[in-house]
């Protein structure tokens, strides 16, 4: 039905290596997804051909379900990340944009509060992993579009060598 394995495609050499500028969860998640993908990364911003900047990362929660006594039973946890990408000349590859993800978190009062607290941390980590996948998919689209514009469209399959999660 037309499906084929996602192809790996060279990143234009002038954009390599990639530097991920972030101190947060999503930055770590992105970096851990890159090895083995053909994308060269660097920890030295001055050597980068392309910079992916995590501009902001924030989390928030709000009550969405209550018990008979008016006490919280469920929250929605929201994770928001804003990012952009530029080449080493400062040209925009991806304009600043946001991804907002959320998940319901049940706070059962009968169980270990410390355990539940860890579960909310796990959820934020999950959401950051999800966001990392989406950031990389958008970067891949941006690089494909750039490649098409400069006549370097890969012949095998579309994509910029950015891996699946």
């Amino acid at each position: 039905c037309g499906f084929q394995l996602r192809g790996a495609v060279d990143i234009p050499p002038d954009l390599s290596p990639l530097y991920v500028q972030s101190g947060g969860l999503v930055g770590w998640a992105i970096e851990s997804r890159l090895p083995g993908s053909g994308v060269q990364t660097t920890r030295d911003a001055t050597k980068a051909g392309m910079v992916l900047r995590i501009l902001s990362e924030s989390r928030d929660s709000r009550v969405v379900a209550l018990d008979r006594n008016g006490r919280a039973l469920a929250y929605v946890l929201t994770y928001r990340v804003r990012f952009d990408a530029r080449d080493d000349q400062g040209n925009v590859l991806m304009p600043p944009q946001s991804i907002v993800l959320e998940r319901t978190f049940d706070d059962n009062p009968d169980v270990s509060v410390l355990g539940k607290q860890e579960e909310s941390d796990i959820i934020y980590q999950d959401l950051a992993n999800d966001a990392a996948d989406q950031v990389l998919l958008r970067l891949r689209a941006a690089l494909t579009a750039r490649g098409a514009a400069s006549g370097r469209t890969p012949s095998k399959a579309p994509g910029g060598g950015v891996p699946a999660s």
Partner: protein
Amino acid sequence: QSAADNPAETPAGSPPDSLADSPPGPRWIEPDAGRLDLGLGWEFCGPRPSRLGPAPAPDLPTPTTPIDFEAGGISYLLDSEVIEATGGVNVARAGQRVEAYRARFDRINGDLATFGTTFLEYPGVRILGQDAQLNLASDTGRINDARYRFSGTTNLRGHADVAYVDNPQRSRYDNISYTSCPPGSNAWSLQAKELTLDQETGRGIARNARLRIRGVPVLYTPYLDFPIDDRRKSGFLVPSIGSSEKNGFELTTPYYWNIAPNMDATLSPRYMSRRGLMLGGEFRWLSRRDSGTVAAEFMPNDQLYDEGDTRGAFSINQQGRFFERWITNLDYSQVSDNEYLQDLGNTIDTTSNRRLLQSGSATYVGNGWSFLTRVEAYQTIDPGVAPEARPYGRLPQLLLTLSPRRFGPGLVGGAEVEYSHFDHNHRVYGERFAFSPNLSWPLRRSYGHLIPSVNLHLTEYALTDEAAGQPSDPGHAIPSFDIDGKLVFERQLDWLGQPALQTLEPRLYYLYTPYADQDDAPVFDSSELNFNFSNLFRSNRFTGRDRIGDANQITAALTSRTLLSSTGDELLRLSLGQIFYFADRRVQISGDTETSDRSPYTGELSARLSEQWAGRASFEWDPEKDEEQWQRRTLTLEYRHPNSGLLNLSYRADETAAEANRYEDTDLSFRLPFGARAEVVGRWLYSLRHDETMDAFAGVEFGECCWRVRVLGRKLKRQPDEDASSSVMVQFELAGLSTIGNPIGKFLEREIYGYQTD
């Protein structure tokens, strides 16, 4: 036309051209009220709206700017150096202008007197009046019967018996009327015996002032201090008036104190007729190293509570980064009694709290490792939580994390070492030492990944107050193995006329953890993870380190995404998965061994339906159950309009918990603008399970440019065995008379997801 290009401070310089050389003056047009607004708009009322830092102070004209002097006819008295000009006089200097039919200028001391109708202009200020006495050397002066107009950083207008110009930045007025409403509107005005407007400080100060609404006096104040631009500065914020079933009549008059550019405070006296006076305060700071907030509330005697008992709340929140590698975090809240937040909280997030976190931590971040020290306790404020069920405190927790490090042929290894002392007054307590190394061998390709990994969980306890017959030093050493494999297929697709990419992502996850008897171990920080799609791929079905679930199972899952080819934006994502068990799960926190050979199905759906609409859903479905097959379900629909209209609708239910903790709730919230000047907001959180409204409010905001009214009515479930209690809150805002800041707006940001104050 005669020009005296002399510096203003040396008016006694060379004489001007003689009268005989002058050509005829410009045709004189008497300035009228229209001149005040000529070329100026009224796009905003009062201070220019802005949230970006301090407003730029207007440019000061340099004192050396030359003066242009134009008149129809000029006579020059040589011996006294006085110029008599008539037939239309126009004196101009960069940014300043004086126009009158007749004027006398004394070149020695700089005095300029005008006769009859006179028009004055300074940067940001225009005045039209009679008979001005000015001094061009000192830039001071006065003018009678003055109509004035401010523009630039603020839009203001009015009339005064006498206007004094102290300098181009500061003016004073006697018997003045003042408003920020556009010409033609007299919605409100301020009448004051004296008023000073200082553009340099951005302040207006009125004495003996009366506020008139549509001409009717409503308020008298001997002294009023208000901002005339958008700079952050001390002053009263918009007060709010309210009435509630629980507290009676309410009045809050917050005062904002701008201590320093990186420090501010807000004092909020709150009067409640049935309870008495409460004093609230918040202090915020921001420095290169840390930032934080301290907030406190104090009620010396609450007449509704325990015969006038003292009540209060305190919280501190701080994040810091010191000496490059130290990160600190303080999050501490405390209230005087269990009912405090329910009685006095204003949002459902506060009134529904079961507990308050009291925690502080410091982390040292090394290269590839970090060390966390944390103390953590809770104040339980839900009386429904039995003493034994209250949370453990961690006094302290020490955690060394060795970050995942690559070595050898693509191996990745890391570890955690933890020591904690868990504290409790009503249950077994004690120390726990844990060591958990892990090793994985990730193979990642563009078309998928294969990641085998091994984990080891070593845990030792030293316990006090354990039940009779239980060992005081249990421990366990449990290995675990898993392998995670995923492939990504994709194809091109046409999505409503746009090129798109559709993926199919099958994923298999195998997990093996041998059974180890952990019944002797206490449950300090372990709880069972909710069953959902992400948790299908977790190597332990419990959180924490007290329980490591035995497992021999495989997860099968499939995800499909549709992405817009041009941007990579996700248009649609659908995930579905299930676990197949090859062994019973004997390790449990409570309850019996689980014996089913497959889990319920779990899935997620998220869809961008159009530019404005988005939808999400998630579920847990167990076809083997006879009833309540849909165990957990959420449905959310979101609408976002570019003109700030929005709507959120959601439905959430959980049938898996104990009877008292199950829920089935709907939540609707919205913001609907009506034209440019009015909007309606609201939220309705309803429990289908208890057939009861938990939180509902509706509000309307309307007004013109120079005044706004916000009215908000609400019902909030605060207490068990009581219906939601109702309250009303009203806020008037007169643009240009109160400091920016809007507590109702903050409340709406909290309650309506996606709401942003303008």
